[in-house]
């Protein structure tokens, strides 16, 4: 009994650890998507942030300089996305993918040039990493709590503030917002920058908390999983958070079930366990979440009529 309890607790802790970057990314993505800017570039923002966070932490020896650099790097990416999609009304998906490729290449090139370690940053010591606060075993650093707080914050900001009301309006019908005398562009820029902030925190978490240093392509598709979580959650913060937790839980269970003999079944093949998250994704998408409707104006550049 006690053993089961320990197993459950530790698996839940692992779930939170794995889900943290997903949650942060998903909340950031929500702001952007709610304002009508599709963000396929979450992955690239996170990767860039992870690199600059680890590089800065390693060079300055300061945790907060590292986290700050991560946020700044993601914000620069967010601004690029904003300039391309809002100011110049470019295709949002294309811009997002371009940012992803840029991040994948630039991080490795800069990493090789600065540190000559094949694109990796030097390993971070304990004083340069985000360390656990209360439970060393669970590795609960500050960004895990930030991720948990980001969910009610996002909900509050979108559902309960004037900014949120306008944000939703600009994602559904920008013309009406414009007609009311509110700047569509400025609203969307703010949303995109908020997205950059969260993606920056997610990136810093990857390289400074979950790992000790940057290694190439370390995001491993998590930005896209966050995007899927937004769709699962039908563009609402709490359901999206739930989706992130499901992905995290599946990953944690997959890791823990490997090589374990399940009573009555025997040892489950590794391949099956690794396929489990994807199978469940298909299953959930096909049967359970129903029709997910995106904000109406998502993906459409707004052109002011003259």
């Amino acid at each position, binding site marked *: 009994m006690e053993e089961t309890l320990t197993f459950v607790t530790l698996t839940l802790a*692992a779930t939170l650890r794995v889900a943290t970057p997903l949650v942060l990314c998903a909340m950031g993505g929500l702001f952007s998507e709610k304002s009508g800017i599709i963000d396929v570039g979450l992955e690239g923002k996170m990767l860039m942030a992870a690199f600059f966070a680890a590089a800065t932490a390693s060079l300055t020896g300061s945790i907060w300089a590292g986290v700050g650099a991560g946020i700044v790097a993601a914000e620069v990416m967010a601004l690029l996305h904003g300039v391309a999609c809002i100011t110049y009304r470019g295709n949002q998906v294309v811009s997002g*993918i371009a940012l992803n490729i840029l991040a994948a290449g630039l991080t490795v090139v800069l990493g090789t040039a600065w540190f000559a370690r094949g694109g990796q940053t030097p*390993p971070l010591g304990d004083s340069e990493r985000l360390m656990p606060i209360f439970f060393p075993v669970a590795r609960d650093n500050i960004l895990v709590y930030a991720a948990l707080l980001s969910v009610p914050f996002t909900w509050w900001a979108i559902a309960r503030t004037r900014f949120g009301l306008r944000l939703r309006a600009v994602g559904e019908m920008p013309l009406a917002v414009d007609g009311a005398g509110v700047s569509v562009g400025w609203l969307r820029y703010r949303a995109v920058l908020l997205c950059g902030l969260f993606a920056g925190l997610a990136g810093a978490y990857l390289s400074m908390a979950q*790992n000790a240093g940057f290694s190439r392509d370390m995001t491993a598709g998590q930005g896209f999983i966050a995007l899927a979580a937004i769709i699962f959650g039908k563009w609402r913060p709490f359901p999206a958070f739930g989706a992130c937790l499901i992905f995290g839980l599946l990953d944690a269970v997959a890791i823990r079930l*490997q*090589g374990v003999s399940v009573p009555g079944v025997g040892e489950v093949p590794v391949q099956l366990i690794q396929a489990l998250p994807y199978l469940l994704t298909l299953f959930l998408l096909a049967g359970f979440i129903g029709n997910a409707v995106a904000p109406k104006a998502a993906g459409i550049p707004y052109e002011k009529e003259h």
Partner: protein
Amino acid sequence: MKRWVGPLIAVFAVACLGVFAPVQAQTPAAIKPAVVFSTGGKFDKSFNEGVSQGAEKFKKDTGIAVAEFEPSNETQFEQALRRFAQRGQDPIIAVGFAQAVALEKVAKEFPNIHFTIIDSVVNLPNVQSVVFREQEGSFLVGVLAALASKTGKIGFVGGMDIPLVRRFQCGFEQGIKYANPNAELITNMTGTTPAAWNDPGRGAELARGQIDRGVDVVYAAAGSTGLGILQATKDRGKLGIGVDSNQNHLHPGNMLTSMLKRVDVATYESFKAAMDHQWKGGTQVLGLKEGGVDWALDKDNEKLVTPEMKAKVEAAKADIISGKIVVHDYMSNNSCNR
């Protein structure tokens, strides 16, 4: 989704190839050696880095430049090998089993160029194959792990799930059982694709999972992924065992030992032989007896290894060399049972 990110990055990387072409040998020399690394990357602090150290030593000793290529994914092996061959680089070392198919193809196209492959066997007259009896080195670190473990639970985290990695695991298991028949081994593999060599995040999670189940010594045989495994092990105050290169320096005081695979020596010897016109094709199998594998003892782990432990490991080592202990090779029958 990952699936199309890969190709995109590959396209970008290929585009970069032209710009960042490997440095050519500058000094006029009798030979123009080259190395094509594996996907873990030159700085994996492990397998590839061992080769790199051997190449660096050769450079230092002879002043002959060694051309290098770090592929960003496995599809680049063939291009890289062919490019080097076309340029007249000779000998060319292909690092890792994953290059076997590409090497076989390229070696046939360039019968006058000498190739060396590490960790796999290619039967061609102009190819030298260097393989190791990793099971013997793993046996020794298994003995140490069993002696150092307080809980009697020991972990193994492999990289890609292939027979070669199973060979490490199987030797490790035999060593553990030799020293403590009641000890339990928990085995995890990081993945089933070459990406598993370069996923420290997942490696760390796997190690944490094992530690949560009572494991207090973790053997990481996973290339760059191992860095995450050993970091997680150190974070929890447990003992890690490194692989291929001496990784004891990564976390002094938390590294029980490292299973040394002397790829550095193999690399150096291969270049040296080519320089002295002594290069021979065929297969070399390097085990404890040949000094091809060993366990690491240095200032970073000397406090963790008691004299009794050392005596027991050295006894096992002598017995393996004399043939008294025969360590079963997983790859002989694709099973850990004889």
